[in-house]
């Protein structure tokens, strides 16, 4: 009987130590992953481009302050977005200073300049009431800039305002793939100039929770791009 008790305690202890070791291993792996991610993104510059009302200022404010802007206004002239440590849960990123630019077609010269000096270029699409003519025009221009030999930046398209799409909001996890494929297909001619279709992420900047989710996906893309 005593031996049974001793064996039981020993078994429990071994299982506990094994579990502890595995947890340590996981913590170490996660930590390594964050460290390498932070190292890879440290000092990188992000350009956020997009038409008026697509969410550029909202996303840049979130990336620089970790919160959504209290007041919103049209961006009619460039402003500096200071370099700051961006924190999202356990993640801290030191991104370089960038610029918040207007979304009007008159700002293309400023867009190009920012595009050419950035490591990651994110083009925002306002998914509610897709203006395909404008998107096609913008992406044609961006593709021309990206065709330059020296262009080394990574490019991502982010569709914002998905919270206004009731079909998207009602999706079950297993239906997301089909919806995503349909959405990208619908962009069709807008993506035609690209030899390799750019990565696309769907999301929303409507609330802190939605924005955190979207930014996590963007950072995930940056890590693998």
């Amino acid at each position, binding site marked *: 009987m005593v031996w049974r008790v001793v064996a039981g305690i020993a078994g429990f202890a071994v299982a506990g130590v094994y579990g502890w070791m595995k947890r340590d291993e996981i913590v170490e792996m996660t930590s390594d992953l964050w460290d390498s991610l932070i190292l890879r993104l440290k000092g990188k510059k992000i350009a956020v481009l997009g038409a008026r009302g697509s969410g550029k200022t909202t996303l840049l404010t979130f990336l620089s302050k970790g919160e959504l802007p209290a007041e919103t206004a*049209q961006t009619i002239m460039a402003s500096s977005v200071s370099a700051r440590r961006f924190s999202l849960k356990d993640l801290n990123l030191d991104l370089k200073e960038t610029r918040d630019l207007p979304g009007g*077609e008159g*700002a293309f010269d400023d867009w190009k300049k920012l595009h050419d000096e950035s490591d990651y270029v994110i083009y925002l699409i306002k998914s509610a009431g897709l203006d395909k003519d404008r998107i096609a025009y913008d992406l044609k221009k961006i593709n021309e800039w990206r065709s330059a030999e020296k262009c080394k930046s990574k490019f991502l398209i982010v569709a914002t305002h998905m919270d206004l799409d009731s079909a998207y909001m009602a999706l079950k996890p297993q239906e997301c793939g089909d919806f995503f494929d349909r959405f990208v297909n619908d962009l069709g001619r807008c993506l035609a100039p690209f030899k390799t279709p750019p990565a696309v992420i769907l999301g929303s900047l409507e609330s802190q929770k939605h924005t955190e989710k979207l930014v996590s996906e963007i950072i995930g893309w940056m890590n693998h791009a």
Partner: protein
Amino acid sequence: MPRVKVCFAQALDNSAPDHIVWDGQTLPVQSERERSLACTLVSSVSMAGEKLYEMEGVRLFLAGPLFVLEVMPQERDVANRAAPIAICIERDDDDTAMTIVDVVQSFAESIGRTITADRMSSVKMALDTLAKKKRPRGCLVPFL
């Protein structure tokens, strides 16, 4: 008369072309080059310039011989965002605050925007702050 370089505002529906007046002429959509220059000029002053005033829906940036006044009219865009107008002017000590206020009022009215009396008072305060700042020597070339 103030030497107004650019008057700028975005459309309230966020899809119609921006309202751009360059040297007193409304720029048509086809004038892509000039529209781009106007936009860049305003942005270069806001980026390179010193923010002299920011209060009550009015901001004033000063860069060399140019300053930009950004004023929030009452109207909001379709996304319920404030819809500012910007006026870029070449500084001249002979210009009075009233003549510049008239320019702001006139451009706002021409595109159907309303600027309240309180906001106009804030514009005058911004211009007072500017008047106290010594005019630097410089030319427009770096901004054009």
